[in-house]
């Protein structure tokens, strides 16, 4: 007797008790659904964290970690910005590097009329503007002319607007940074997201910043590669280049993102495993429900089993019939559970702003696992059915 024939027979038996079959499936649907939701959200979170580490647009940050000798030779080394303008130019020549994002930040006092505030004042190059996508809410953004000409213009953060201008329109107003007048041309959008909080910031073209603060060095350098694959190579080459230019051994470094991403991956995987196994318990309970109903079904269908045996069904065929029936039950439940889990995790990620990932491995795993549950929890009832005595069963009322 073929598998398909068994399957069709199982379907017709399940259809004969629609409500019961659906209720039994519900346990499997919820169990599989819960596991899918947990895994989908876990994997989505992992992907999101990894992408945040890697930075938007295949970027990698460079940092300066002076050696002990350098610190001894120059105790004030931490006060100095580690990247020179020629460093940036040299980095831009590397073939793997698409562009170099450089900025310099210093704490500074800002004054508007009688009010003052402490801000972090950042001089940025044009690449920074493109990559970080500073969005302007009011006024206009920095233009190429502003960068090239070193115009005395600035973007201010939303928080600073509130503190310093108290609701008045800041566009076109003159603020004073390090005793130099600067015109406000734009206000940045409020940062969004779960962990975002406003801070007091001013952004100037680097040429302007250089004149105001009298420093032509950069505190932060981020390089952007053409592709994620080239990023590590670009980072390593960049570090090597800077070390050579500064005659240092390995003071200029890039973060090894692979290691960090792996670490993050491990943490999220462990979390997913823990929550997933709790969800798995509901699947187990669902399996017990299937076993229960199959046992009832075997008892109810004792006469059917007797008839089948009298007509020539072997014990093995009866066993197979009931195993396939419970497997069909859990398989359908599993497939519906996958859709439930998929849908729910999409809804969750829509409202929580957290991506969800239902990978084909998870779907395949869910299908196979629900079949396995059907077999495991079907063994006991199927075995009971196959052990029935045909004569007794034929007499069963």
């Amino acid at each position, binding site marked *: 007797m073929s598998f398909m024939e068994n399957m069709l027979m199982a379907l017709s038996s399940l259809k004969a008790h629609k409500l019961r079959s659906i209720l039994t499936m519900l346990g499997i649907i919820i169990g599989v659904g819960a596991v899918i939701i947990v895994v989908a959200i876990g994997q989505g979170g992992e992907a999101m964290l990894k992408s945040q580490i890697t930075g938007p647009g295949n970027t990698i940050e460079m940092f300066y970690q002076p050696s002990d000798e350098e610190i001894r030779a120059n105790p004030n080394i931490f006060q100095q910005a580690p990247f020179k303008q020629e460093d940036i130019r040299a980095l831009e020549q590397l073939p793997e590097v698409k562009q170099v994002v450089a900025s310099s930040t210093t704490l500074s006092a800002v004054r508007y009329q009688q009010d003052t505030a402490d801000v972090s004042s950042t001089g940025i190059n044009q690449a920074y503007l493109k990559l970080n996508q500073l969005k302007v809410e009011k006024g206009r953004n920095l233009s190429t002319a502003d960068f090239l000409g070193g115009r005395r213009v600035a973007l201010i953060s939303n928080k600073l607007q509130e503190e310093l201008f108290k609701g008045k329109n800041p566009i076109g107003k003159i603020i004073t940074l390090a005793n130099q007048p600067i015109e406000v041309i734009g206000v940045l959008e409020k940062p969004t997201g779960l962990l975002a909080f406003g801070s007091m910031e001013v952004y100037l073209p680097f040429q302007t910043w250089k004149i105001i603060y009298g420093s032509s060095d950069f505190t932060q350098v981020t390089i952007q590669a053409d592709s994620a694959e080239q990023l590590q190579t670009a980072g390593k080459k960049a570090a090597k280049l800077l070390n050579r230019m500064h005659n240092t051994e390995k003071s200029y470094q890039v973060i090894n993102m692979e290691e960090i991403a792996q670490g993050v991956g491990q943490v999220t995987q462990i979390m997913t495993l823990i929550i997933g196994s709790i969800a798995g318990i509901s699947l187990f309970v669902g399996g017990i429900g299937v076993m229960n109903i199959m046992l009832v079904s075997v008892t109810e269908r004792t006469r059917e089993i007797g008839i089948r045996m009298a*007509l020539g069904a072997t014990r093995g065929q009866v066993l197979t019939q009931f195993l396939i029936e419970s497997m069909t039950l859990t398989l359908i439940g599993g497939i519906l559970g996958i859709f439930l889990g998929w849908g729910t995790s999409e809804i969750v990620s829509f409202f929580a702003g957290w991506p969800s990932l239902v990978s084909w491995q998870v779907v395949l795993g869910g299908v196979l696992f629900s079949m396995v549950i059907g077999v495991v929890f079907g063994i006991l009832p199927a075995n009971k059915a196959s052990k029935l005595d045909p004569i007794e069963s034929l007499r069963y009322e």
Partner: protein
Amino acid sequence: MIRLESITKSFLVGKESIDILNNISLIIEEGEFVAIMGPSGSGKSTLMNIIGCLDKPTSGQYFLGGEDVSNYNDKELARVRNQSIGFVFQQFHLLPRLTAMKNVELPMIYAGISKSERQSRAEDALRKMGLEDRMDHLPNALSGGQKQRVAIARSIVNRPKLILADEPTGALDTKTSMAIMEQFRELNQEGVTVVVVTHEPEVAEYANRTILVRDGMIQVSAAAERGQRT
């Protein structure tokens, strides 16, 4: 066709062993139409179960169509039931959720016959029973006589040499009973050996020979009975 040699069947009731069948020897030739009669508790059902390979004797040998089936295991017995015996029961024993057609197909499914072959054979069998317009009906939509005809169709689709009918008319009115018995007579005339267990003399009338079972033993010698009848 059927040869029983010193068949004994005993059951344990508590510590005591009770003989239901006591040293029964019996020969039924191919092509015979035999009725097995006896009061309830005589052991005729047990004898029927052993002949039908649903039960195994405690001792003795049973040859069915030349095969010694007395020591067959469950799987082999299932094959013998499937291939060599057609069953007809008092309560029809049709699967209620399957159409007449599907019920008739059932033994062929276990015989591993292809779907198209099954359908054509099931159709033939149902047509032969005069049920060509009832093929897609569920058992509930059929009368008692029609149900039993479906059961007979089911018993012949694997073309067995032997048809075993256990009180086939027990749940039917007299007129229908006679029609069903005519059906068996027809099959017998086609060469199928028919064994009917009954307690109704009218039914036994259709047989060429009656075997009387009482207290686990055969009472009337087969030869004598045959002599009476002819």
